[in-house]
């Protein structure tokens, strides 16, 4: 794979073997079994040193499938907040990207980016393992950029959380707001603001 090595301080510890955590947020399971199929010998993401872990604190990449429902929302937020920076979120499958065929159902929020910041979107129904590996490789680049930013003391670039259509807000997830990196834009409407 040809990825740009943006590391200035020598070999990257992050790109060598990032660990994945996978969660099914109201998905039909099609994308989940393709995520697991990517680990199997035919597609084999393990050649990148990637291991599927169950512990959010060990994981660098968060693979989420499914159009989020109300009950899954706090679970995703909790897993995301337990992961340690630098971290990347990959939305697998069209349901995770935008809600898919279930977008207008009463219990779906319509995509992962309504809840947590998403870095890579991988479409497909169900998402093909080849596309997933492509997404993971791009996520490794983004992970490397975040690590470099952290090492240099710069703010970590975090994408927006796109809540609703008219009122996008930035959901800040770092625990200590005083040392927060990402500048928060107060929302245009609804002046409660998004700062934690």
């Amino acid at each position, binding site marked *: 794979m040809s990825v740009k090595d943006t590391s200035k301080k020598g070999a990257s510890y992050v790109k060598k073997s990032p660990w994945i955590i996978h969660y099914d947020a109201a998905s039909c399971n099609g994308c989940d079994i393709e995520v697991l199929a990517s680990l199997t010998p035919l597609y084999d993401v393990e050649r990148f040193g990637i291991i599927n872990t169950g512990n959010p604190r060990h994981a660098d990449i968060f693979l989420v499938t499914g159009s989020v429902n109300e*009950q899954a929302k706090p679970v995703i937020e909790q897993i995301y907040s337990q992961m340690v920076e630098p971290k990347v979120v990959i939305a697998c499958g069209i349901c995770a990207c935008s809600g898919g065929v279930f977008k207008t159902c009463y219990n779906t929020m319509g995509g992962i980016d309504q809840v947590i910041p998403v870095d890579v979107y991988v479409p497909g129904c169900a998402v093909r393992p080849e596309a997933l590996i492509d997404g993971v490789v791009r996520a490794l680049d983004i992970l490397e950029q975040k690590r470099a930013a952290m090492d240099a003391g710069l703010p970590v670039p975090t994408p927006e959380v796109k809540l609703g259509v008219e009122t996008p807000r930035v959901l800040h997830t770092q625990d200590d707001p005083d040392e927060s990196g990402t500048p928060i834009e107060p929302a245009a409407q609804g002046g409660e603001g998004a700062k934690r």
Partner: protein
Amino acid sequence: MAKKTLVPFGPQHPVLPEPVHLDLVLEDETVVQAVPQVGYVHRGLENLVDKRDFQQFTYIAERICGICSFGHSMGYSQAVENLMGIEVPERAEYLRVIFHEMSRMHSHLLWLGLAADAFGFESLFMHSWRLRERLLDIFERTTGGRVILNFCIPGGVVHDIENTELEAIVSTLRGMREDYDQIAATFLDDASVRSRLSGVGYLSKADARTYGCVGPMARASGWDVDVRNNGLGAYSALADFKPVTSQDGDCYARCQVRVEEVRQSIDIITELASKIPDGETLVKIKGNPAEGAESLTRIEQPRGEAIYYIKGNGTKFLERCRVRTPTSTNIPGMCATLGGSDLADVPNIVLTIDPCISCSER
């Protein structure tokens, strides 16, 4: 006096592919009561009957669950045909059953891999899923999709599969059989698997009937409930079909039943591919479901009996589509078997039920 503690299991757990939450009430290490909490995958898709007409709803029905996807499209199509009195060509019935049995095989191989992984047999997980890829190759070659096939619609199947292709499918399955026998033997004959699964999670035949369990879970307790035995569709063309049962009723028996069902599916496909008649594969549906018409049909999904209730209202939109999946009926039985088991056995018991939560919550 033993102190009672509450231990939450799930929804995010390494052994579970899907989110289900169990509240386990423990006394020391023994589970006294298990209370399920579902709803993590509830999307409310039954409300989409308002927005998708009855033919478009096939695509929603397929996406109820990715593992049982073909079964849902077949069940829904059969329900619509039952509702409107449409007779499907015989060749289409045979093709549907062939693909349904392949779907059952892929589901059982998937389950075998996950069960092995839960035991720590990671390489068996890899082998089982590597074998499953051959089935997914067949799906992709014939229908274009690996997981969601878009093949079965009300009226028949979308396009014909030629007899030469069917012969190629049968020879692929025959080639898989030897590898599969090796994998199954490695799992079932292993001493540690046997000791961890035998006698664990026992469900008697009487309890299986009381709790209304279906599928391999009930068949492992000695009750031969199987919709394929009812002579519907192309299953009536089989010379001799007996549901695979076991008398032991424990986790090991459930594993044995599923392992044997894969072999039975290979036999079914081989037999039907040799008997398949020529002819049309799709009839066009005219008109809409009549007002007040209702139909209730059943099929045998990999996990048990699934029920499809459909009601029409005279327009092209259905009034109601209700799917009852086997896992909804098996979960109360599972909670009953969890009572009295050790905490360490809980993941094994949950896995041998083969829960498909996204099916049961729609």
